[in-house]
């Protein structure tokens, strides 16, 4: 079973965990990506996330299917928040249940790695000296 979403609301992590619990599972592994204040000594004030929602939700579902197929996992839930997020807020949360802990760790790690690599979501960092898009450092006006 896969439960996935892109949301503008605060992520209810406990609800996510409850949604993957299973009487035949002895492990629930969770991951939360949170907004960090300091990056390489530079202070972030807040972040703005943007997404291509239609595609991002499809990809979350695909990743969820991959996790259930590749690892011995039973259920997975993934939510990514977009819009403005302040320091310490949860940007992404993943919960994976499995009969045994090893599979739940592996499945959870695979899911966040795939999200960070492929899912069309972008963050703009607002710092003390302006704003810039992360991951798009090559996007500068040439000449």
């Amino acid at each position: 079973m896969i439960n996935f979403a892109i949301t503008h609301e605060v992520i209810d992590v406990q609800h996510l965990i409850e949604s993957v619990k299973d009487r035949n599972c002895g492990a629930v592994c969770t991951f939360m990506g949170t907004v960090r204040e300091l990056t390489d000594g530079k202070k972030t004030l807040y972040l703005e996330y943007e997404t291509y929602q239609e595609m991002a939700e499809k990809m979350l579902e695909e990743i969820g299917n991959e996790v259930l197929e590749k690892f011995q996992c039973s259920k997975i839930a993934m939510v990514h928040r977009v819009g403005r997020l302040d320091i310490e807020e949860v940007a992404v949360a993943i919960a994976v249940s499995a009969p045994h802990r090893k599979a739940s760790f592996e499945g959870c790690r695979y899911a966040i790695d795939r999200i960070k690599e492929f899912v069309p979501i972008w963050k703009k960092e607002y710092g003390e000296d302006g704003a810039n898009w992360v991951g798009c450092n090559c996007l500068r006006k040439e000449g």
Partner: protein
Amino acid sequence: MERKLKILCFAELGEKIGKCVEISMETEITVSGLIERLIKMYPEYQHSIQSCMIAVNQKYVKVDTVIRSDDQVALIPPVSGG
């Protein structure tokens, strides 16, 4: 018959060239042909455009993929979710 193809743009590229760019196309166009057209339209953002992956109907595609005017096309800059 001339048709319009809409291309969705995101993140910094969306801010710079607009969130939805339209180009006219007479027949079909390949992904690499589309990239060439966009670079001609926005030469100052050549590097940015080349760093994007292309999605057609919400799936990443290869450069030889053929695009039709009713496809949903998107320029996907390097992602930074999580």
